């Protein structure tokens, strides 16, 4: 079998299923829960088998990696966008996690989401996510990684806002989306710089992972690129100060919290750094920065986690702590350790998230098994720190490190104020530009006692299609 066939199939299977389900729904076909769930489970079951076959292929080939090139996705003149997938001992463990854990979550969700009005939507998004994350892990260039990264981001938002009839999940989803997009600028700009400096973002050209040569980027260039990629990784991996989105993401259904924020999506940032390791080596101060950020995140996660009042948020901060430690490991160059850590963490955390609805029950069972002597943890910390310091830490942790406040005040705030100032100037010029016409019309309409002004008057409830 052509060795390029399996990696492609791994991504095309969930992607194709998502397309089929979506199109069927658009055309009005109502599919039964059993069919939708069954197809998804079968798809990821097959994906798991494909991953096993890839392991076998890699182990028996004697090569460090399998590269599958499928030609150019598109080309204009001298420029071409190659479609290349890359399977090695860094990406294969994560591909394994991706296929296996999504399979397990699909099995779990079949019952957990039973009779939920969003059952179909959940499985469509799960398949789209699966295609995106597998593409991200298997991508053979940073350009292609962007495609997977963005798909994961969009599906993440749509699942956070899954319970769309409530305002809070929607607001949380918007907040997470804003954080993702802001940090993704780093990835996009970093890849742009790769093209400026080296004319490519393909791994074979820019990352001398398996060949005896240097990266084409100079030290300064690698530093610039890596700091931008680090920004993106920090956003996706909920590192400080961009960690505020992770607890908000817990608004989504438990299975999606497990697969996204316990297992896969949240480790995408770490994988990006692992993949770009040759550039980190060539860059200055990037590794040290990763260590500092990771350490701060680990501390932040452990302190804030102790103030959480609900299970999923506590798990979110526990995840954050581990992610911080993983970043520290990567910064020190302990990549194999980091990879094992990611694998183990993903498995344990997924289990914990899936058990979260039963967490209290589990706790009581363990407490009873311990003869009622299951005590509180963290007493050693109380012994180390004076009372005032503990109180200060507690208040800081309760407000989650003031990170969101700082981001709102110093990052988002100035942008919004600038936009509002510009809008104010435009309104001032309204008689010349006509910008304030709507407001003028609305005021006049209110004076005239009309319900509404603008295109069409009034508001009709429950309009049927015949009038539309």
């Amino acid at each position, binding site marked *: 079998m052509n060795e390029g066939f399996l990696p492609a199939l791994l991504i095309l299977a969930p992607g194709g299923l998502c397309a089929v389900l*979506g199109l069927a729904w*658009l055309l009005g076909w109502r599919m039964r829960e059993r069919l939708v769930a069954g197809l998804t489970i079968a798809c990821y079951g097959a994906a798991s088998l494909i991953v096993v076959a890839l392991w076998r292929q890699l182990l028996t080939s004697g090569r460090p990696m399998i590269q599958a090139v499928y030609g150019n*996705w*598109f080309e*204009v*003149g*001298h*420029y*071409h966008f190659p479609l290349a997938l890359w399977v090695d001992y860094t990406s294969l463990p994560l591909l394994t996690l991706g296929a296996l854990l999504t399979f397990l979550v699909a099995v779990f969700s079949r019952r957990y989401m039973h009779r939920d009005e969003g059952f179909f939507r959940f499985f469509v998004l799960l398949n789209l996510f699966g295609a*995106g994350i597998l593409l991200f892990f298997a991508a053979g260039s940073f*350009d292609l990684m*962007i*495609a*997977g990264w*963005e*798909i994961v981001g969009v599906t993440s*938002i749509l699942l956070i806002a899954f319970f*769309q*009839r*409530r*305002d809070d999940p*929607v607001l949380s*989803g*918007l907040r997470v*989306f804003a954080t993702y997009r802001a940090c*993704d*600028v780093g990835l*996009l*700009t970093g890849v*742009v710089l790769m*093209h*400026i400096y080296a*004319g490519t973002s393909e791994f074979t050209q820019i990352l001398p992972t398996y060949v005896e040569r240097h990266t084409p980027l100079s030290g300064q260039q690698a530093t610039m690129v890596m700091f931008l990629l680090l920004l993106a990784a920090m956003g996706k991996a909920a590192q400080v100060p961009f960690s505020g989105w992770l607890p908000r993401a817990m608004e989504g259904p438990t299975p999606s919290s497990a697969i996204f924020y316990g297992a896969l999506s949240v480790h995408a940032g770490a994988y990006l750094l692992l993949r770009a390791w040759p550039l980190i080596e060539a860059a200055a101060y990037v590794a040290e920065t990763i260590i500092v950020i990771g350490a701060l995140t680990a501390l932040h996660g452990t302190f804030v986690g102790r103030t959480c009042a609900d299970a999923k948020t506590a798990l979110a901060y526990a995840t954050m702590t581990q992610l911080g430690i993983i970043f520290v490991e990567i910064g020190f160059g302990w990549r194999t350790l980091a990879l094992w850590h990611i694998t183990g963490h993903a498995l344990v955390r997924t289990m914990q998230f899936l058990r979260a609805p039963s967490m209290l029950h589990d706790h009581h069972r363990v407490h009873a098994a311990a003869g009622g002597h299951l005590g509180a943890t963290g007493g050693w910390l109380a012994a180390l720190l004076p009372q005032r310091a503990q109180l200060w830490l507690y208040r800081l942790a309760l407000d989650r490190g003031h990170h969101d406040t700082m981001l709102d005040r110093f990052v988002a705030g100035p*942008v*919004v104020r600038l*936009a509002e100032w*510009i*809008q104010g100037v*435009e309104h001032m010029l309204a008689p010349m*530009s*006509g*910008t304030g*016409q*709507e407001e003028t*019309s609305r005021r*006049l309409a209110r004076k005239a006692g009309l319900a*509404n002004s*603008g*295109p*069409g*008057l*009034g*508001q*009709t*409830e429950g*309009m*049927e*299609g015949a*009038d*539309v």
Partner: protein
Amino acid sequence: MSDQLFIPPVSLGILLTLIFSWFVGKQTDAEKARRQATGALALHFAAMLVAAVAVAWTPGSRFSEAPWQWLVVDALNAIPLSLYAALSLGVVVLAPKRKLTPRWLAGIMVMCAMTCLAYAANNLLIFTLGWAGSLAPFLLTRAFAMPGVAADIKGPGVADAGGRRHTLPLPARIALWASLVSLCAGMALLVYAAPEAGLNEALGLTLARQGDAPPVFAAFAFLMGAVILRKGLFPAHSWLAPAFEQGPLLPMILLVNGHLGAFLVARIVLPLTPDMAHHAWSLLSNLSLFTAGYAALLALVARNPRRLLAMVSISQAAFLLTGLESNTQVGIAGSLTLWQVVAMSTTMLAAVYAAIEARLGGWPGQPGFLGLAAGAPRLAVFFAVGGLALVGAPLTLGFPAEDLLLQGTLVTNPYLGVVLPVVTALNAFSVMRMFARLFLGRPVAAAPGMADALPRERLALTAALLFLLAGGLFPAALIRLPAVAAARIAAMMPGQQHSGR
């Protein structure tokens, strides 16, 4: 040298559409008029598609239409011709009943025919006629006026004695008239700047006016003035938001998505004033970038969905000029591909929003979420996909378009490498905010009973969705012709840059 098509599909399509528009305008029954207009525009679309396929078959070819050679179909206009025809057809199919009058439909048909005339023009005069004709329904008729608005809602340029609104607010009308006058002046000066050539050659599109002599400079300035006014580049952007807010939404989106300003640059300004364009590209490119960022900021704080839509459209469309002015085949191809994305996706967004307005009887204006996905999940999906395509999400045609744009302009304008991701991020947030406001959250009382996409809406919007998604998965087919056109334009430019690899 150009070949000729056996039958002149573009001429026939334009002529038949104009003729049918007269009959449609005279109809008394709106639904019957819609059916006639749909049939006519479907034929028009088929004709444009035939021409596009003929060009795609031999991409380097250029077909002129017998017998007078005033119309031409080549790699540059083949896709815009069929795309615009498809958009016009889609708008007619999707227009809510309460907006529909026979004159409205006739206006759309005239706009479609005249815009296509401008695309296919092989002659400065024909192009000017097409440009003017595309504005005629707005400026010379009340085809898109909304009936039944109470006469006591007054405002400058809003209500007339008959209680009917003018189609557009005064600033919009001034801007569009000014763009036409500027265009005419530019065209006249172009002819004047070729004293040695005969009239036919001076009016043609092949004679480059080299150097920066005063007539050439003045012609370039007037033509770019027309572009800036029509496209709504800063500081001439102010007319667009009120036009969207107070004017007819679907005709406005069609007007904007004609991108005749960008086409003017590609077809006339770059080839006919290459030296001037080369000198001024930096200024114009940065002006476009500034407009993109400026409009993105305004979209961020826009409360009115129409205004938000206008600003996001201006912002993303501003990148078209940056690509055209890049002097590189890749950048120009990216720009021409982005054109397809912006046109299709903004039309989709406008159509969905117009459908919602029709169902709710207007924009409620209250803060908070509407939760309309409870009753209209398919409309939500169409909106989401259109919005994501507009901001370059993977799996949509927007992704390869922005990639090409970036790659092609990095050498000539590295600022784009920073501005494009930032602006796109802002626009993505604005679009997502609008999506959330309309479709998510606690449903308002009207939401559960609201009709989801009707069969005609579902058909048209699914076609648009498939275009964007299929184009994203298999972009090569839609990039091929823009790449050929881009090579031709880039070859004409002095000091042409090669991008990337």
